[in-house]
């Protein structure tokens, strides 16, 4: 039994709760986990690399709905308050942090897509088998854990901490599945290097994708950092580096390495969520990941949040109106996936339309969250269910 107090601060949340341990064995069937498991067993061919990258996109996509639910469940400001804040009210600071992490996940999704296109893989964003279902399951070095669609509360933030947890450096990939997201990406790096080396021997390259399909900063902007066009092994490795470092930071600092990519210094995801969890900012001079935040206190109001139930499902919404609203939301979600699919297949201007759809998603999500489900003590919420066409 490890002594919690002697653990580095940033590893204290690693230990699963008793409840989490109890359900862990039942999580194997989860879609996300099965995908990660199945790719881990095949690391030889270009087709395996393609599949890894599709799963990477699925993985990045899978975190966005939980972040969105937390964000959109935060109520607007109280207009009778003299210090009224329009967006996200008293939780404005926390909301800004969640939003910034979510934007970076969108960037990671796009970076993974650029790599997949660069190595000539088939895009399958709007295919059912690559659309996450909730609760989804992710692995970390302490085990597997569920990620729910949930309102903004302390449990949700704890899950976010687990999602973004730094990987202990000594953890090696296991054959029976990736223990952490970091391992998964490192496996992609190794596979790319190996395949490119083999290709080079035959005076070929695996980076044969159509360059016109690369998303650049004309259409990808404002989303958590600089998009990189992937043209060869070096830029592909840079892209993965950006994904990993924005997320996890490193053993030695709480900041990400974005300044390498010409951006301003920002906290790595884990530490952003830790600020919310502790309701306190890191002081400007702090860098050591082992220290708790020592900066200014942060206003967190878990009561100024719509009471959305965990992992809502349309069929549980009792009334036809709520079910219809939920269906509308999911149609928009499907439309978003369709637009992303076509944007990555060459119709880049579809990104512009996707922006509009994202706004619609927000309005519909909030409309659902404001509505109590008759006969239950919870409100409805966005279900992110895949609608077949």
């Amino acid at each position, binding site marked *: 039994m490890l002594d919690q107090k002697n653990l580095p601060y940033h590893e204290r949340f690693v230990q699963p709760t008793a409840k989490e341990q109890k359900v862990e064995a039942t999580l194997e069937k989860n879609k996300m986990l099965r995908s990660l498991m199945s790719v881990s067993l095949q690391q030889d061919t270009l087709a395996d690399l393609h599949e890894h990258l599709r799963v990477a996109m699925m993985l990045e996509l899978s975190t966005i709905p939980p972040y969105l639910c937390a964000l959109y469940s935060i109520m607007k*400001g109280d207009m009778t308050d003299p*210090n*009224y*804040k*329009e967006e996200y009210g008293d939780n*404005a600071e926390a909301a800004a942090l969640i939003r*910034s992490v979510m*934007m970076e996940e969108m960037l990671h999704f796009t970076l993974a897509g650029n790599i997949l296109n660069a190595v000539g893989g088939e895009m399958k964003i709007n295919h059912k088998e690559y659309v996450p279902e909730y609760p989804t399951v992710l692995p970390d070095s302490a085990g597997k854990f569920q990620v729910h669609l949930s309102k903004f509360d302390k449990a949700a933030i704890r899950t976010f901490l687990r999602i973004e947890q730094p990987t202990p450096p000594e953890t090696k990939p296991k054959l029976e599945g990736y223990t952490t997201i970091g391992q998964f990406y490192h496996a992609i790096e190794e596979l790319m290097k190996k395949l490119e080396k083999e290709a080079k021997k035959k005076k070929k390259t695996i980076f044969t994708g159509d360059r016109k399909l690369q998303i650049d*900063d*004309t259409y990808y*902007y*404002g*989303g*958590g*950092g600089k998009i990189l066009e992937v043209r060869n092994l070096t830029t592909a490795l840079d892209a993965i580096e950006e994904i990993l470092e924005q997320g996890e930071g490193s053993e030695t600092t709480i900041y990400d390495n974005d300044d390498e990519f010409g*951006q*301003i210094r920002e906290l790595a995801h884990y530490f952003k969520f830790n600020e919310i969890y502790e309701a306190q900012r890191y002081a400007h001079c702090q860098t050591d990941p082992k220290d708790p935040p020592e900066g200014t206190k942060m206003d967190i109001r878990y009561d100024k949040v719509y009471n959305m139930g965990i992992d809502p499902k349309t069929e549980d919404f009792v009334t036809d109106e709520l079910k219809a609203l939920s269906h509308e939301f999911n149609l928009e979600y499907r439309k978003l996936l369709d637009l992303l699919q076509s944007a990555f297949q060459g119709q880049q201007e579809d990104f512009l339309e996707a*922006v509009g759809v994202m706004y619609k998603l927000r309005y519909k999500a909030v409309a659902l969250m404001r509505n109590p489900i008759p006969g239950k003590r919870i409100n409805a919420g966005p279900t992110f269910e895949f609608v077949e066409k």
Partner: protein
Amino acid sequence: MKEGKEFDVVIVGAGITGAIIAKELSARCKGLDILILEAGTGKSSDFDDYEKYNDQYYNALAKTPNSPYTDSPYAPSPSVLDITQIKDNEPDTNGYFVQYGPFPFLSNYNRNVGGTTLHWLGTTLRMCPNDFKMKTLYGHGVDWPIGYDDLKPYYRRAEYEIGVSAEVNEQEILGITFDKGYVFPMHKIPQSYLDMYMTKNMKGLTFKDDGVTYPVKVISTPQGRNGMPNPKYKNFDTREKGFMPVGAVGNPDLGQRCEGNSNCVPICPVQAKYNALKTLHDALQNTKSKVTLINQSPVSTIEIDPKTKKVSKLHYKTFKTSKNGVRTVINNHTVRGKIVVLAANAVENAKILLASDACTRSNQVGKNLMDHLVMLTWGYMPDDIGAYRGPGSTSGMPLMRDGSFRKNRSAFRVEIGNWGWNWPANTPESTLQDAVADGLYGKDLIDRIKKETSRQFRIGWEMEQVPSDKNYVTIDEKYKDELGNYRPVIHYTMNDYEKRGALVASKLSEKVFEKLKVTPATDWQDTAPGYFEYEYEEDGKKKTFKSVVNGAGHVVGCHRMGDDPNTSVVDSNQRAHDHKNLFVAGCGSFPTLATSNPTLTMAALAYRTADEIVKEFTS
């Protein structure tokens, strides 16, 4: 800061002119100590500060141009709500301005870090070549000491700094030319559905004036807001290729593209619209020279050495209000500068010069105050035109900005509004109030709002005012603000030349409305501050034209430039004729107003001035 400390350069005013000069000097000169003194509040690079402006805007009951920004009695800003019709010989002292009229000055500006770029619309038109030669060509006003070709390289730099979205092929009109291979940093902001609708339905429409037939054509307007970067863009000066839109200060991921939030005035919530905070931020980051910015420090006077005629000192006051707002501490300070740049609003620059008895030779300080006089006409389109979407205006009908008619009447720029009747009638809020007052609710209410707001349409006709010695700013011991600094005393009138311009605009408006089958709804009271009458003869009959104009916020004139020290205050580099180490920069230096919104030209002039100051420190 040490009392009486000498800086290499002291800049008064943290608006676009001051910011550009500070950024240029700090990037190009080594080891300079540069001070910016700002009268108002606000921080230069704090994102939370800007978010506070957003919240103040949401909270404001009347969403006036200055409503988001903190106003201080110690450095007050004029407000559009203060303006009234002026009674005989009784000045209107409602607000910060003391207005003697006979016609009220209708515009305002913002005294805060960032200046009036915080609430500007973002229109970045270049002046047309003939605008520089009003006297020679049309016999009105004066000529500029420089021409279009002199300003061209500076326009390029200003368009880079502001980040202008436009297409060269659409802007090569009215004699305006561009360098070979030039493209704007970003593609044009997509034109609104209304713009397209008008283009389609006005095809072939022409307007005859002074014997010339002008096509009435809708053309996109260059804008200082982030659009899609033009991959062909190449910075002529740095040779750098491509353009990266600049997002919000302190949160650069935000605002990299215009999101169509539709409240550019009074505040772009995401800072996709340029504001001078962005340039100030860069200036403060530059390490070659040190830039210090202090706010809440209005300059009262500059002191002139009687022997050298150079500016020896600046006097400014600081104010600090206790947390509960009860007590304010006021202190007097002095500071010295090898070079002094007055870069405040035209009216404020004039005020400082007048209070200091500086630049007296030409007797032109404070004179020739000008503004665009905006007449609005509005009505219902026969179809849904998607009103209230996108930036305030994405197109105009610019082909009548210049012509031989300028001998007889003022030229006007035509601005097509995207926000329904928001400016003249405070829609859509008033549309809702009216419908509720009519007893509507539920679906009927929604249907009425949809039906009315979607068809609301308005055009702005912006008349060019010519310089006049009847329009001037002065100071008076009787009128001071709470710090003891002078309040601007304004004498102002609307001339027949401008009224004739308005009359022609109203005729063109009728033609446009008729062609588009617009049901007119233009409605105003003769008690409105901008109400005027004009008597004229037509077909042998005496007629009276009545209408209302508004201010455009284009505060121009008061220290005009020229080659002759007897008739102008500054030279073409904005250096004061009378005081070698003094520059008086900004819209105040314009000899004539032109039909373009002044900010881009002001920014271009700031680059010209910066180059001149750089020479002082490098030669």
